[in-house]
């Protein structure tokens, strides 16, 4: 029984009753020799053939996934681009101050629920952790609000005590403003904050997604910054109509700003997710194609070797009989 052993055995459901050697995806011929009934040796190509079949199936699946992601991307992309106009006036008015010094900051991490989308969720989590570290100090504290399964899995491991809210299954229904405003309401009600930092992947193009942080300040901090001058100092030049106090209007403004920024962030993240999935699936199908080429060469070599072996045995047998 000449069974070649390699490391890392894998139990594959093959036809032969002999203990099967592990097959690794290397170009070195994963042959295995069998003994036939009358001691004729033949080399089986069954293992290679099975592997080729499964790799071909994987290639088809990943190609299909890429096309699905492309069509989903087209649908969400128009929405995302239209929603950009929502928060631009807010930024024009209030500015975006990521470097603002606050006591309580809340990091809202937006991630996807499904996997196979490349590294975008890991980059978001890395940035969230970085912000957390930046904002931790004697009097300062940072809490997390997590949207999406993937960030939850990563952050729950080491930052469990800092997590305030976890929200998943965002994309069950197509994203719309009402849903996001309900979410924003929940967050505003349950979490105390001085500054909200929303971490998401901004969609620049199908191949480029940039992790970004948008900062939304609470009304008290806006007042404080306005008094200290800088961009927000111009805020006092604006007359505020309606309402009893300026504070009331600013409160509404901050909440509205938060929901607009969230809406845009969620849409952009959805776009980035689909785009990243497209490119991940694309490279996966390309890899599968390469693997298939290599396996085909191996298969042919094995096949030819077995034919040659058979011929040799026949001819040597014949010449033994003659001579």
């Amino acid at each position, binding site marked *: 029984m000449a069974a070649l052993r390699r490391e890392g055995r894998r139990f594959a459901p093959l036809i032969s009753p002999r203990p099967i050697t592990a097959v690794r995806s290397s170009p070195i011929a994963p042959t295995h020799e069998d003994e036939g009934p009358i001691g004729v040796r033949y080399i089986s190509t069954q293992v290679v053939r099975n592997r080729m079949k499964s790799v071909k199936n994987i290639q088809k699946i990943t190609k299909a996934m890429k096309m699905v992601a492309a069509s989903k991307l087209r649908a969400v992309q128009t929405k995302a681009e239209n929603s950009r106009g929502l928060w*631009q*006036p807010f930024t024009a008015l209030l500015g975006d101050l990521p470097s603002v010094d606050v006591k309580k900051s809340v990091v809202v991490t937006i991630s996807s629920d499904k996997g196979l989308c490349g590294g975008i969720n890991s980059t978001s989590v890395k940035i969230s952790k970085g912000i957390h570290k930046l904002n931790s100090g004697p009097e300062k504290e940072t809490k997390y609000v997590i949207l999406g399964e993937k960030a939850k899995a990563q952050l729950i491991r080491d930052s469990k005590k800092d997590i305030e809210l976890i929200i998943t299954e965002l994309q069950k229904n197509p994203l719309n403003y009402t849903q996001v*405003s309900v979410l924003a309401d929940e967050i505003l009600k349950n979490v105390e904050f001085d500054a909200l930092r929303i971490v998401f992947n901004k969609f620049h193009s199908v191949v480029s997604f940039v992790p970004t942080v948008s900062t939304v300040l609470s009304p008290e901090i806006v007042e404080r910054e306005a008094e200290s001058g800088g961009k927000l100092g111009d805020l006092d*030049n*604006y007359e*505020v*109509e*309606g309402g009893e106090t300026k504070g009331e*209007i600013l409160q509404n403004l901050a909440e*509205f700003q938060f929901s607009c920024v969230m809406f845009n962030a969620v849409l952009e993240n959805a776009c980035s997710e689909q785009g990243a999935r497209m490119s991940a699936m694309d490279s996966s199908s390309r890899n599968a194609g390469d693997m298939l080429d290599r396996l085909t060469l191996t298969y042919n070599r094995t096949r030819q070797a077995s034919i040659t072996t058979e011929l040799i045995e026949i001819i040597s047998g014949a010449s033994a009989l003659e001579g």
Partner: protein
Amino acid sequence: MGLAGVDMVIVPATTGQMGVLPGHVATIAELKPGVLSVHEGNETTKYFVSSGFVFIHANSFADIIAVEAVPLDQIDANLVQKGLVEFTQKLSSATTDLEKAEAQIGIDVHSALNSALTG
């Protein structure tokens, strides 16, 4: 959503209809449900806004951010009447403060819609 140069805009602020012309003083105003009309030359385009904010900047730029904005001709008058009746009923049968507030909001929006269509 877009950038356009117009002559005048009338916005439904919480303090009433506010006309905004170039050179208006810088203002932040909250909007209540009502009609937004954009005047350009001799043309007027009217939209119904559910609520939002308007920022008027000192350089004669105005940003209007609305939660929902619908051109008036896309509103169905019958549905508006039905909604008004429904919310009035809800108000009279409301027990908690929350229900009363919700019903009141419904009435406000629908009567504004009504006056937008007729006026």
